[in-house]
């Protein structure tokens, strides 16, 4: 298992190498990338903040939960923090398994759980404003 919170750019290849085993027939990778619009608004860049020790602990729990539930070989999760430009990768989840179906399901589950429990936050910066995002798309109340 590999869990990493880092301000450095993310590269998928080391995660693939980390999870692959000789009994693995499939590796499924998810890459979350910064896109240029959200809720109809043109996004200039994002900023990710994290509580690193707690985020790593929670990511580890998510990974353990998934390993106990699907017959998969291993999981690697890397989340980037700091300022990210359009097109940069914020998250990589890699899951390996002997059979492909399980790897797809487990990878999707990890991505969903990360958005629920892991203390990482993103701020969208657009022309003329910015806002911390809550959950899947709501914006925070903006204090005066």
């Amino acid at each position, binding site marked *: 298992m590999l869990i990493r919170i880092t301000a450095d750019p993310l590269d998928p290849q080391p995660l693939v190498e980390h999870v692959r085993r000789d009994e693995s027939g499939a590796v499924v990778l*998810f890459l*979350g*990338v*910064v*896109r240029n619009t*959200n809720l109809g608004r043109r*996004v200039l860049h*994002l900023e*990710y*903040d*994290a*509580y690193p*020790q*707690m*985020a790593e*602990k929670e990511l580890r729990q998510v990974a353990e939960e998934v390993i106990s539930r699907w017959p998969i070989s291993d999981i690697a999760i890397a*989340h980037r923090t700091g300022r990210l430009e359009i097109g940069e990768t*914020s*998250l990589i989840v890699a899951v390996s398994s002997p059979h492909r179906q399980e790897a797809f399901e487990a990878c999707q589950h990890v*991505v969903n759980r*990360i*958005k*629920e*429990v*892991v*203390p*990482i*936050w*993103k*701020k969208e910066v657009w022309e003329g404003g910015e806002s*911390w*995002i*809550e*959950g*899947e*798309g*709501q914006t*925070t*109340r903006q*204090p005066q």
Partner: protein
Amino acid sequence: MKIKVKFFAALHDATGRRELNLQAQEGLTAGELYRDLCARFPRLADYGGGLMHSVNAEYVSPDHPLRDGDEVAFIPPVSGGTHAH
């Protein structure tokens, strides 16, 4: 007792701080600490509704009693992972 408080994301903006070391009286709970901090940082009160509490990097309930040396954080609704929902 000594308590360290950490502020992230919107709470960092609201307090202007990343971290705060303070003295608290024995038996103070995580929720009581939050209310005390709202007096000092009024903008914090805007976030009360959706916050979770954590002590030493574990989620706890607001009535969790604090102990000397604890690291406390108030966790706004998370939004990490991807930009694609």
